[in-house]
Each structure stands twice: as structure tokens, then as C-alpha cells.
């Protein structure tokens, strides 16, 4: 048995797995073509959104069914705020658009955090629908057809161009960098006093209040941070596709993100990333005509059944399988990496 440490450190296997994953992602473009790069860029963006939801669901216990709203609104903001003919600078576009995501999360949180349990889930879903209808129906959004980002933003300092995001590789590495930064930020956040407070709220909110924590501001802050991170994903997505439409805010996407974190394993940051990749793989699998032929059109059937099966049979997700295999007993407070 290892002697107790002064503080929780993620175990060596965990750090190793994260490092290996990062390395694999960094080397991926070297072994694959444009389809592969495009697919993994998209999946890494999903992973960022999944991480944002993990902060709410896994860490704090707030089951939000409205993540698509923060993602989509930020995407729309990025397109709307970009000047017509010139490339915007990502250095200001990114934080501002993330701010839009955070702002809506603040609004949603302020009104829904007074509710609990299933009602909370319902309220978040409803507020996400509200955002959907705003971009779908009102002139702000541009209607069902969506809007185009004609000139993609660039990462530049002054007149020195650092990254031309019109090309797939720079974008890929930017997204990878953002994923890495998000992961590290959340890992630090969750082991900080703020993160421990969220964990306490998750396990026993009553006790937290009795001890002297005003839990509402903490939850609202978690919401806002989550909205900002989901917004980060949204901006990157808008840059990648050059196009946004209302379906980015559909509750189907909110549901998909929830499934990603359950599939990967709640309570672990790695789980969110693993779940995003697993979900993307499942989607590609069921959509594949090579395997399913004519049924590939009805890939949602397979996906629906896979969702039911995975929630029923793998309540602790894919990471749960890993834990089962290594059969470790936790004794120190877990850093959920």
C-alpha cells in the first residue's frame, strides 16, 4: 500500500493515458488524410463541449439538457460579429463569442437553479429551445437556412499572421491546443477550492450550506464557466464549417453531449473526451453503408438502441470498465482526471 500523500495527485497511469492520448492526437494528421483530419477536428470540438458539460453534470451534479444553446449561440455570435469582407482576429472574436455563451448560461442558470431534480432538467431543456427559436425565427438568426462565415478569422498579432484557419492543419492544431488548454484548466479548477466546493455541493448540498457555503453563487459560476467553454467549442465549430444553422442549438445535440459524458464515464474529465470519441465512432459506424447497407439511412435506430444499451449496461461508462479491470480502491480524494 502506498503511503498517504500530502495531496491528491492523479495517478501515474492516468497521467500516462492522457499523455498518450495527447500524443496520438498530435500525430494523427501524419497518418491520415483530409477526411480523418476533418473528423477528428469535429470530434475534438465535441470533446470540448463534453468537458463543459462534465463540469456541470459530473462535478456539480447539475444535469443540464441545454448545452447546445451555449454552443450554438457562441457559434452564431462568431459569424455575426465577423466583418463581411475581412478576416476577424480570433484574439478578440473568441473571447467575445465565448462571452455570449457564458452570458446565456448565466441567464439560464439564474432562472433555473432554483428548481431541482427533474424540473431542473426540464427547465434547462426549455431555455435551450428558447435560444433555438430565437435563431430559427427571428432576424437575429437568419432563419432555417443559417448564415455563412465568408471570411474565416485568423490568429494574428498585429499584421503578423500566425495561423491561417482556412487550412485544415492549422485549425486542427488550434482545436487540439484548445482541447488541451480546456482539459488542464478544468483539471486545475476541479482540484481547487472552488472545485472542491462544487464536489461538496454534488455530494451533500445541505451540509455545504450548514457549513457556511452559499451554494447558489457557486452553481451559477459553474454554469457560466460551462457556458463559456461550450461557447469555445461553438466558435471553433463555426470557424471549421464556415456555416451555422439552427440545428446547432437543437436539443438533439444537447442529448448527444449528455450521452457522450455518460458513455465515457461521469466524474472523470478523461471520460468526457473518451465519450466524445466513442460517440463519434458509433455515429460513423451506424451511418456506414458498408456495414448496414440500406439501413444506414436509419442510423438513428442503431444509435438509439446503443444509447439505451450503454446507459443500462454501463452505468459507469467506458472508464468504469477500465476501473473494474484494474480493481483499485480509492483512498485519497479523487482528482477527477
Amino acid at each position, binding site marked *: 500500500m502506498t503511503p498517504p500523500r500530502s495531496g491528491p495527485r492523479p495517478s501515474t497511469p492516468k497521467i500516462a493515458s492522457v499523455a498518450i492520448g495527447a500524443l496520438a492526437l498530435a500525430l494523427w494528421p501524419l497518418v491520415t488524410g483530409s477526411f480523418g483530419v476533418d473528423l477528428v477536428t469535429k470530434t475534438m470540438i465535441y470533446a470540448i463541449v463534453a468537458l463543459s458539460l462534465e463540469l456541470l453534470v459530473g462535478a456539480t451534479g447539475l444535469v443540464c439538457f441545454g448545452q447546445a444553446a451555449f454552443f450554438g449561440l457562441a457559434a452564431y455570435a462568431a459569424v455575426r460579429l465577423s466583418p463581411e469582407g475581412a478576416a476577424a482576429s480570433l484574439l478578440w472574436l473568441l473571447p467575445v463569442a465565448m462571452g455570449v455563451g457564458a452570458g446565456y448560461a448565466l441567464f439560464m442558470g439564474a432562472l433555473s437553479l432554483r428548481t431541482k431534480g427533474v424540473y431542473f432538467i426540464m427547465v434547462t431543456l426549455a431555455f435551450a429551445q428558447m435560444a433555438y427559436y430565437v435563431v430559427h425565427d427571428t432576424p437575429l438568426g437568419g432563419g432555417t437556412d443559417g448564415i455563412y462565415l465568408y471570411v474565416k478569422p485568423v490568429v494574428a498579432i498585429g499584421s503578423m499572421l500566425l495561423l491561417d484557419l482556412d487550412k485544415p492543419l492549422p485549425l486542427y492544431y488550434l482545436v487540439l491546443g484548445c482541447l488541451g488548454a480546456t482539459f488542464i484548466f478544468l483539471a486545475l479548477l476541479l482540484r481547487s*477550492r472552488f472545485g472542491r466546493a462544487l464536489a461538496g455541493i454534488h455530494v451533500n448540498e445541505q451540509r455545504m450550506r450548514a457549513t457556511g457555503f452559499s*451554494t447558489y453563487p457557486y452553481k451559477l459560476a459553474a454554469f457560466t464557466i460551462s457556458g463559456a467553454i461550450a461557447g469555445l467549442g461553438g466558435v471553433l465549430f463555426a470557424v471549421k464549417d464556415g456555416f451555422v444553422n439552427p440545428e446547432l442549438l437543437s436539443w438533439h445535440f444537447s442529448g448527444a453531449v449528455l450521452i457522450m459524458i455518460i458513455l465515457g464515464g461521469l466524474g472523470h474529465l478523461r471520460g468526457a473526451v473518451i465519450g466524445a470519441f466513442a460517440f463519434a465512432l458509433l455515429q460513423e459506424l451506424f451511418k456506414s453503408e458498408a456495414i448496414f447497407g440500406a439501413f444506414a439511412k436509419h442510423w438513428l435506430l442503431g444509435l438509439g438502441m446503443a444509447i439505451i444499451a450503454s446507459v443500462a449496461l454501463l452505468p459507469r461508462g467506458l472508464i468504469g470498465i477500465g476501473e473494474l479491470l484494474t480493481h483499485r480502491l480509492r483512498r485519497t*480524494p479523487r482528482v477527477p482526471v
Partner: protein
Amino acid sequence: MNEVLLRATDVTRRFGGLVAVDSVSLELQRGAVHAVIGTNGAGKSTLINILSGELAASGGRVELRGTDITGWPQARRARAGVGRSYQRTTIYPTFTVLENCRLAAQARHQRPWAWWADATACTVSVPAARDAAARAGLAQALDQSAGTLSHGQRRQLEIAMCLATAPEVLLLDEPLAGMGAEETERMLALLAELKAGHAIALVEHDMDAVFRIADRITVMVNGAVLASDTPEAVRRNPAVQAAYLGGHE
């Protein structure tokens, strides 16, 4: 020595037509243990909930060191020095004993904006937690997961978490519940030790323990105060004997 830390004046709580707490007044003085006894349903726990802020009073006033805190939410009262332990253990079962106490201690030193700083390296909450755990007798179990503790140890942890918040007023709801003789002795010794710096309200059913440790006893029946006096006076009070102490010595 006789500084009144917490004062409740005519506190009432109604649930629809039911009056759970009926115009109860009591004082908690520093250096004294004030026991609140009564049969089940007498309103003792409801009273504690009102004092701690979990439940709003329907009427009456609660003052902390002279300040009116009647409208204050629970978290604010806790930060001001009103600590409580629960009748049904409310710990964080998935955390270690140390982390349970540390998180409680963190309430006094929250620093939520320092997102980069490792909480378990906090120079304020960690020592406070170790200290509180040691006082409650859990120094040997710091790294144990709280979910694996025995019942008696959990009650100790309840107290430790209460102590970790550095309260001035301690509201203890049946801390001796389910404890064996040895554990009870240990808890009573701890309470005697804590008496000096704090004002303690103690809801208890264990009459022997109550009469040993209490400086003042309030007897509640049907939400109202039947008697509030020194232990000896309460013991001799015929109304109390009739209503409550009946078969007890």
C-alpha cells in the same frame, strides 16, 4: 463568562394548521451547555432548524451577539459562527475524513477565485481540519473514506466538521444517538472540554448524559416550553415529572 451568544425570543413555527414550535425563548451563554429535551415530536429538531437557519421562523426573533439574524439564511449564520451537527449523519461519504473536515474548514476561507491552487495544499483549511479531527478523536482515521466509518466514528466526524468551521455557537442534534458506553464517555469529555469557549445547545434523549453535562435544561412539550431551569430544578419540577421524566430516576 455569562455572555449571551445566541438568543431566541418567542420563536414560533407553523406548518399549515400545526404549531410545531410555540413561542419558545431561550438563551445560549458562552461556557454553558443548554440541553433541550422532550418527547418525540415535541419540536426540538424544528427549533434547532430555526436557530441554525434551515427553517424560517413564522414568528419571533433570533439574535446572535445582539444582531438580529432572524432573516439570515443558513450559510450566512454558519459563517457568522453558528455551527450545527445533524441527528442523521450528513457527511460526505465519498471523501476521506480529512477532506470532510477540510471542506468544512474551507467555509471560513473560501477563496473561490484561486482556480489554480490545489485545495488540499491550503495552508488554512488543512491545519484547521487536522485540528478539528484530532479534537473529535479521529486523528488516526484521517485517510479513511468516510463511508467506511463505524456509526460512532461518523458521529465523531459530524462533530469534527462542526468544529472545523470555528463556530462560537454549537447546535448539536442528538450527538450521542446510537453510541455505546465508551463512545458516549468520549463525546461527553469532548463536550466538557468545548464548553469553555463555546455556547452549546444540546438536543438529547440520553437523560443520564444530559443531567451530567447540562448547565441548563429546557423541557419542550407539544412545541412549547414546559420548564427551563437548572438540572436540579427541572428534575424536581412536578409538571416535568408528570409529562416526561415519569419512569426515569
